[in-house]
């Protein structure tokens, strides 16, 4: 098999997909470094699954191009699929098979059945996914979490160079989520992992690089550390009681405030205020709030920009209240 080596496991240029005149994906320029864990973020309908299906050759691009390990996603799709493992968003399997049979069937696409590798790999991935005790049960009775674990197991049965996971933790309980993250951490540096998610905590914990997709367009692409340090913003989370509209408009108009997000919940108002000038904010913010007799402050905390803040800013744009 040809391997036109470059530094990127995935590379796309102006990759576009249009459905009946609607652009699901618009001029995607993506570079995923080899052996990185790449978090592909975006709200529902942003085009994440479309991008993944294009990489897998399940759909064809309207325009643009892309490659995986230097192989063209349109003309060399079979060669690409030899070297990747894929977990669909809602994995579905043949109900009459057991977990072991599903894995044997999957492995049959990669290994020669006579080599004896298959059974060894099946035992390894069953152990890895925590399904060893359920291996000979029909998948018909599997819970959503067990199906997801089986999905992770089948995606790894060929020891892929690239693992593509579409919302891998979406239907898992907290322990299942932790296990998935552990698996991803264990593969760090050995395999490239490209995964889509909307669970930002997970991304912050395991990813090296992040791409944020919104309405079919890539709006951010950077190593996660760069993304978090680039803004130099400070966030103040304030919970208060009382009439806060007038105060909000006064605070929002300050030159050192870039954004105030307001959530009202059970009589409390929660602000998430982004300040661009930390010194001015330290000097003035709390004084302004406490100077308003109409409100009572319940909580006041200060923190650095988190991925969620960056995500909200990039997806919703800079806000003014």
């Amino acid at each position, binding site marked *: 098999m040809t391997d036109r080596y470059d530094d990127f496991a995935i590379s796309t240029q102006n990759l576009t997909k249009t459905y009946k005149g609607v652009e699901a994906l618009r001029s995607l320029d993506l570079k995923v470094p080899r052996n990185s864990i790449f978090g592909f973020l975006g709200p529902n309908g942003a085009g994440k699954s479309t991008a993944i299906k294009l990489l897998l050759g399940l759909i064809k691009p309207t325009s643009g191009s892309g490659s995986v390990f230097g192989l063209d996603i349109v003309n060399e799709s*079979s060669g690409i699929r030899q070297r990747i493992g894929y977990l669909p968003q809602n994995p579905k399997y043949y109900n009459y098979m057991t977990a072991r049979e599903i894995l044997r*069937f999957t492995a049959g696409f*990669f290994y020669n059945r006579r080599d004896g590798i298959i059974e060894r790999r099946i035992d390894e991935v069953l152990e890895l996914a925590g399904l060893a005790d359920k291996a000979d049960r029909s998948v018909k009775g599997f819970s959503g979490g067990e199906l997801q674990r089986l999905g992770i197991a089948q995606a790894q049965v*060929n020891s892929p*160079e690239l693992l593509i996971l579409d919302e891998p933790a979406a239907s898992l309980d907290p322990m299942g989520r932790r296990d998935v993250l552990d698996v991803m951490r264990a593969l760090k540096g050995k395999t490239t992992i490209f995964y889509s998610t909307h669970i930002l905590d997970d991304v912050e914990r395991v990813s090296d690089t992040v791409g944020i997709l919104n309405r079919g367009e890539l709006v951010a692409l950077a190593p996660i550390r760069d993304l978090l340090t680039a803004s130099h913003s400070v966030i103040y989370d304030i919970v208060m009681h009382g009439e806060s509209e007038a105060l909000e408009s006064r605070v929002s108009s300050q030159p050192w405030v870039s954004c105030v997000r307001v959530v009202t919940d059970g009589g409390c108002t929660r602000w998430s205020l982004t300040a661009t000038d930390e010194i001015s904010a330290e000097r003035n913010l709390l004084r302004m709030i406490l100077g308003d007799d109409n409100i009572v402050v319940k909580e006041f905390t200060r923190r650095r920009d988190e991925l969620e803040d960056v995500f909200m800013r990039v997806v919703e744009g800079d806000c003014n209240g």
Partner: protein
Amino acid sequence: MADYNKGNRKEWTDGMWNMFLKENRAWWGTGKWIVQTVLWTGVVTGSVAFVLYVFTTLPVAAKPEIYDTLGTGAAALQLFFNVCGFTYVIGVIILTHDLIISEKESGTAEWVLSKPLSRKAFVLSKLGASLMGITLIMVLLQGFLLFLITWIFHGEIGLIPFFKGLGVIWLICLFYITFVIFLGTVVKTRGGVLGIAFLFFLTGNLVPLLYPESYFIMPWKLSKIAFSFSVNIAWNAKVILPIVMTVVWSLLFIAGSLWRIEKMEI
């Protein structure tokens, strides 16, 4: 790094054997083969045996003409091919209508086609396994059982002519399997596939009344041709043309399915 085979391969056959084994497993590794065997033995062989038994109880004057002139064997063959020609079409349509659509709807197509499985191999393995199951259970087994019950009722069947007749019945099955698989790559719903396939089958009783020539290019009269072959009626153009056209249609449907599946967005 995986130690799997990364050599150059012919892309269109990628994954075909593995998928074919899986499709066979769906036939022979589940209860499906038992259900189909019982069903078709009851419907085809059972109904022929029942009618032959009734014939034996009738007075000579009440027996059908064919029983009198050609004997028990021919009567059995006529019954057999008439029942097969009608029920096998219905059976094949029902058995194969969701081969492609169920995979699309359930999401398993997205999963298996993300593996090194070519789309052509995906279709051909389904076609091959279905054809094998239907051939063994509906054509060969029922043919053998007919042979057996005809012998029990003291009838005679010529082996070679009978196999020719069975071959024509097999062609009917091939036509409808390929037709329905093709529809599965074109139409988006199970109802659509079933509706079009059954409409075509039922049309076979009406269109020839208006256009008798349609018999020559469609498989509508093949069960009668199968009977003709089985009782050694001579070959002629009227018999050969529908057979040739059925083969041509089947090949066109296979080609169409392979073309469509490559265009399909999963």
